[in-house]
């Protein structure tokens, strides 16, 4: 089982990219689990065609010690196992602590043993703002962290913070930095700026995604692009990105 965490600035396209990546991996025969680590609970929304699903934390709050795995797991498009950690009411509670509890509850209820995914994708909110958001990169969780960024300064700044956190946690046995995914926004010197970020952290841009209207159309239709426009050029880009991530993770073809 390979576990991968994807981080990046809010609104940079993490959930869209991760969901399409999940489907691209599923198309290749892998069993994929996507875990949204964001109180908004919308990481897997395109995989479930907009259908609401209960979050881990909602279910834990309701069922306490009687929490069961089936309460919080939904199988979405292409057989991708969808989970949303959820979180507190905006402005209350502690979202970071929520991520820790949600991931612990998944483990305690046997999520990984029951579904036996080949690949687990953690789609993590924003940058690493507190201890809770480092949970997906802790020992026993992700093996590798990928950062999504565009050439926009704020996105690069957030990416640098994430890379710095990975670097700082090296002696704790946490995940290593797998590379950077460039989600283009067509800003000036985009490639150059992101290359510079990669250079600063001794890593590489492992995948590039062009800006495409089709991605937004698919989102409007409540679907992942690989379902909405499976034969498009953009779909091929996601499939290529899946290959590149598999190569970095040293994953072999599924049986």
């Amino acid at each position, binding site marked *: 089982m390979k576990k991968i965490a994807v981080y990046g600035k809010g609104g940079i396209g993490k959930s869209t990219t991760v969901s399409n990546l999940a489907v691209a991996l599923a198309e290749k025969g892998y069993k994929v689990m996507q875990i949204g680590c964001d109180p908004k609970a919308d990481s897997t929304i395109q995989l479930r065609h907009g259908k609401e699903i209960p979050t881990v934390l909602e279910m834990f709050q309701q069922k306490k010690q009687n929490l069961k795995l089936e309460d919080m797991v939904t199988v979405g498009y292409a057989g991708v196992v969808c989970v949303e950690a959820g979180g507190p009411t905006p402005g209350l509670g*502690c979202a*970071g602590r929520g991520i820790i509890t949600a991931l612990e509850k998944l483990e305690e209820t046997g999520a990984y043993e029951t579904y036996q995914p080949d690949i687990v994708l953690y789609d993590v909110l924003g940058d690493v703002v507190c*201890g809770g958001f480092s949970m997906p990169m802790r020992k026993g969780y992700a093996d590798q962290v990928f950062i999504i960024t565009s050439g926009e300064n704020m996105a690069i700044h957030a990416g640098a913070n994430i890379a710095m956190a990975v670097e700082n946690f090296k*002696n*704790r046995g946490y995940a290593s930095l797998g590379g950077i995914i460039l989600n283009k926004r067509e800003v000036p010197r985009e490639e150059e700026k992101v290359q510079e970020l990669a250079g600063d952290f001794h890593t590489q841009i492992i995948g590039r995604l062009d800006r495409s209207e089709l991605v937004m159309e698919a989102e409007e239709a409540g679907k992942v692009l690989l379902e909405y426009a499976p034969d498009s050029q953009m779909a091929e880009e996601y499939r290529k990105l899946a290959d590149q991530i598999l190569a970095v993770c040293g994953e072999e073809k599924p049986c």
Partner: protein
Amino acid sequence: MRQSYRIIPIYTADVSGVCSALYELGGMTVMHDPSGCNSTYNTHDEIRWYDQDSLIYISGLTEIDAIMGNDQKFLDDIKEAARELHPKFIALAGSPIPYMNGTDFPALAQVLEEETGIPAFAVPTNGMHDYVYGAGIALEEIAKRFTGEKTGRIQARTVNLLGVTPLDFGPVSHVEVLKENLKACGWKVLSTWAMGDEPDAFLQAGEAEVNLVVSSVGLRAAKVLEEKFGTPYVVGTPIGSYTERIAKALEEKEQISYRKDRMQGRKDRKVTLIGEPVIMESLAAGIEEKYDCRVEVLCPLEETDGLLADGDRWVHGEEEMEEALKAAEIIVADPLYKPICPKNCEFYELPHIAFSGRIYLKKLPVLGKLV
């Protein structure tokens, strides 16, 4: 049913359980907390505090360090103390604040071990579990890491006593009685987890013929030792005349003998015991055998799975306990339970340090001599 406590106290918390279990083992135990956890521990929970040295530390976590996630200060302080004191191991125990912060203790233990060369481990306490959980995991870690390799050598008719802390058994002189009881039945104690022994006694624990889990604190360690050395375990406390039955269970490797021994189906006058499951069940079996009197056990602690006999039960919270005691005629429990017992019941005091701390220390019964 509400879970608030208005009249009776709660049991000793998990953090104190860790400190108590590791107190005599030559390691350094660090509670990561502003300071409340250590004062509760040394004021109420630890009867050895003034007579016996131990490397029990509090980190003195401050508001700003908690907010800023200043793990480095915690690590630096521990490293500095460890360099001076050369502990055999470093154990980290969390409290509510680092729990809410999500402090990654296993990772910090890894860093400490790499940087000091001293074995380090974390016990996932948060101040919200009871002592059995904390002490149990602490001893489980000792079983995993400090018992040496399997030699294949077995010393016949020897046992390790697992789950022995003052929180349940009182001073070491009381623990000696348990050993004497077993000795009288032909069983020698190799090591006692964890009081009254040389710290290196653990190294020969793998040579015991069988492990005896004398309280629920020892169950996790027993499972590790079974896996690591193939040593079977028996659950039960060698209390007075009931020791003979325990000795038979040791010979036959009968895992939880008291569950079979307990009276079934009788509805006559009954005695109610409240407390830790293994000790109370053993005591109940001893009372039933000696006095032909039906006993019921009410257990207010978390870890009771598989440890209670049929008809006995886990009771959660003061209200539920009060309700459960309504029909009780004879109650044997810590004196602090008395205010929630029916007025017309006969109440016999059985002080339990994990419940009332040092208050009744002078009246503490020698469990090994009770029946």
